């Protein structure tokens, strides 16, 4: 989603994942993004359509709720449960992953502190992302948007929040080896500003516990 729409013919496939396809579309003269969950031939049709429908509704519910409590996510413009797809606002800007390479250490820290605040607010409001990586954060002139709530959930469990932090830490480590420690520390600084020192310590303990169990080692990087 980092490139501009340009003159190319729309709709244009911009990403194909295991579960969904992402298209850039024209939505009444404005660029927009469609996420479509594709049918799986290995599931019986009634099961397949129920799953795609449920997940699409779940994801858009989460995004709607996130926006309602002040978490920046793309605005949902259209929802089509029968087709298991929805159209959302096109957020212009690079992923945080790409932007972090291109900015000064000071701005880098500021971005990660901001992300810490956003994620902490999301957690405090009872939402977890489930696939929190810096590729799933867009930076629109410094304003951060969270995208891809496909594995997200309504949850107040410390475990689920810990998984978010663990996945983010791994993502930072795998792509930004040189300044990984500074940016994750900045993230935790922002996170702590919202939740307080005690909660922050609790969740960091949880992250270490999950890591020790080894269940998330060598997974999503």
């Amino acid at each position, binding site marked *: 989603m980092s490139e501009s729409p340009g003159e190319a013919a729309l709709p244009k496939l911009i990403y194909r994942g*295991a579960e969904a396809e992402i298209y850039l579309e024209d939505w009444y003269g404005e660029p927009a993004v469609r996420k479509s969950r594709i049918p799986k031939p*290995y*599931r019986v049709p*009634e*099961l397949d359509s129920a799953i795609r429908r449920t997940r699409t509704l779940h994801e858009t519910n989460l995004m709607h709720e996130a926006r309602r409590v002040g978490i920046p996510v793309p605005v949902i413009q259209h929802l089509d449960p029968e087709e298991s797809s929805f159209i959302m606002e096109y957020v212009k800007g690079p992923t945080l992953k790409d932007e972090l390479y291109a900015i000064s250490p000071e701005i880098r820290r500021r971005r990660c502190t901001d992300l810490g605040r956003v994620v902490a607010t999301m957690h405090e409001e009872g939402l977890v992302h489930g696939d929190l990586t810096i590729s799933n954060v867009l930076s629109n002139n410094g304003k951060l948007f969270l995208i891809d709530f496909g594995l997200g959930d309504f949850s107040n469990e410390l475990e689920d929040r810990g998984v978010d932090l663990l996945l983010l830490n791994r993502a930072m480590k795998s792509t930004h080896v040189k300044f990984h420690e500074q940016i994750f520390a900045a993230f935790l600084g922002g996170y702590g500003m919202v939740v307080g020192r005690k909660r922050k310590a609790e969740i960091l303990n949880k992250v270490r516990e999950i890591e020790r169990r080894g269940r998330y080692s060598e997974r999503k990087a």
Partner: protein
Amino acid sequence: MFAMYCLGIESTAHTFGVSVVTDEGKILSDVRDVYASKPGTGIHPREAADHHSEVAAKVVSSALREGGISGGQLDGVAVALGPGLGPCLRVGATVARAVASCFRKPFIPVNHAIGHIEIGTLTTGARDPLVVLVSGGHTAILAFSGDKWRVFGETEDITLGNLYDMFAREIDLPSPAGPQIEKLASKSTNFVPLPYVVKGNDVSYSGLLTASLAKLRSGASLADVCYSMQEVSCSMLTEAVERSLAYTRKKEVLLTGGVAANSTLQKKLSEMVLLHDAIPKVVAHPYTGDCGAQIAWAGMLALQAGETAEIANSRVRPRWRLEDVRIPWRSSAS
């Protein structure tokens, strides 16, 4: 060149199996005697162990005789020291220690799950596959990296084999129950909704078990429930494998373990794998279930890599995790 021979002994659960293989991967013999539990009950560990002790001598000597070699010609004796049921493991371990010390041969500890993977690669020619290991003890998605198999996804509670066996136990079918459930399922195409739980690359089957039994109690037909449970459980695993495949971009997917014999699972997986331009492979038929050959072949590979143990260090390991096993004979492709 003289061939090398390795004897392998499997006794982790219901099967007591012994096999002789050569260093070229030729399976000279594969003899099994399977403990049959009473319908409506699972494997009773002590009864299974009693069964294994009773048949052990007979199975070992038939394996040697069918292999056409004597104990003195062996180059090593391999045994599955885990994971599995303690009393059963101890029978196999005792027999292996006796054979190894009697003929003064190297003793080779083998992880049972590694055996499933190696017999799968041997019989399919897979080189660097994403492995889907499905059995009574495992439901895991694995890829080789560094010097170990890494878990990319797995069940968060019971295994696929457990799901079928526990369901069967409640309705008085004997275990292992996969084939019977598959037969019942083939009589229906009427899908009844059941919980479908995939979390990232992981699956969870315990809710599906409870819901399937509840559906049955509330009057749904047995065939409909078997069909729907099989559809949901196999689709869930296929989706979890699809996520791991999209992430790892492996070019082969190897299905191995006892539940690999399930044709619904085979069909769903291969359909998905082909969509991703990869090649689906399934362990050759007689070696899906637990057998001596998987232990003998993994033992042969370990022997050639120098992975033997002193008999003093041959205690059974009922909870031995496969991702703890160093695999010196395999090199990481990536």
